[in-house]
């Protein structure tokens, strides 16, 4: 492998972007190539020096930021509701309307369900009546002529 390619891998390694699978290849190449080994040592040293220059977050700044964030949050509430009666009223009305809507919706769902049950019951009864009709014995109707009919002429 060329030195340039190894150096490119070293850069990716120190940037935390080298694939884990390529790390053994890099270290094998480093053991074979003096120039890239020197580059690795120097890059490693720079990385550690950079690490030493990282400063801690100032405590006063932390307190300032958290205090400002907290006051912004309470200010947001104050701006939106406190001292702004119409906004508070409309917010409350919206919440109430939302609750009423949910209540009515659930009621209509219940009504729909009970209606479906009733329809099913009517259909069942209807089928039962049809069955009962079909179960009745066959009726035979006979006609009989017991009285003789006398037909007389007018003359």
């Amino acid at each position, binding site marked *: 492998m060329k030195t340039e390619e190894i150096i490119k891998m070293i850069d990716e390694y120190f*940037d935390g972007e080298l694939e884990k699978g390529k790390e053994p290849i890099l270290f094998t190449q480093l053991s074979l190539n003096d120039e890239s080994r020197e580059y690795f040592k120097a890059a490693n040293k720079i990385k550690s020096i950079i690490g030493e220059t990282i400063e801690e977050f100032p405590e006063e700044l932390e307190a300032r930021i958290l205090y400002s964030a907290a006051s912004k949050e309470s200010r947001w509430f104050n701006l939106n509701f406190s001292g702004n009666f119409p906004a508070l009223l409309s917010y409350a009305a919206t919440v109430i309307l939302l609750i009423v809507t949910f209540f009515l919706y659930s009621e209509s769902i219940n009504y729909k369900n009970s209606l479906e049950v009733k329809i099913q019951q009517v259909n069942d009864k209807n089928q039962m009546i049809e069955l009962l009709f079909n179960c009745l014995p066959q009726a035979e109707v006979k006609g009989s002529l017991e009285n003789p009919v006398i037909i007389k002429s007018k003359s």
Partner: protein
Amino acid sequence: MTRSGKDIVEFTLIYNRVKVKLYNYVLRMINDRMATEDMVQNVFLKFFENMRSIRNKSSFNFWIFKTARNEIYTYYRRKKIHVDQFGVMDSDEVDITDEFDLLIEYEKMELNELILHELDTMAYEQREVFLLKEYAGLSYKEISSVMSIEENLVKSRLFKTRKKLINRLGPKILIENI
């Protein structure tokens, strides 16, 4: 938990994860401690205000560093100072116990200052990429989105910056056994 309560918890988590990185990135970019503190505070407060409007939660890092970068540009514009002519770092106090520690501490400080000085003399774009990588800990992809440049350009700038640092400081840092 209320929505605002959730927001505060989420903000605190992200804030704790990013604060040191952001502070060091801004500090090295502008080399002015007071201005850095104001800027970091502004960025975090803007982030807190806009948290709800950021739909993609994974882009919080991008949003914070992009905003910080914009603040840095605004700062430069307001001050009308060329990026290379920027101020000098505040001196750090050295906490030592004996003479040997004192020597090591001074040598360390010398190297740290050398690297920081070398970074200050570099082209602004190169320095910015390097700081976003080393101090902010962003990936190539994140740096490319924050700076609106190609990922390959990020790689090449990082490579050039590191090589320049090694060329200038290499012999010194390899000889020094600290």
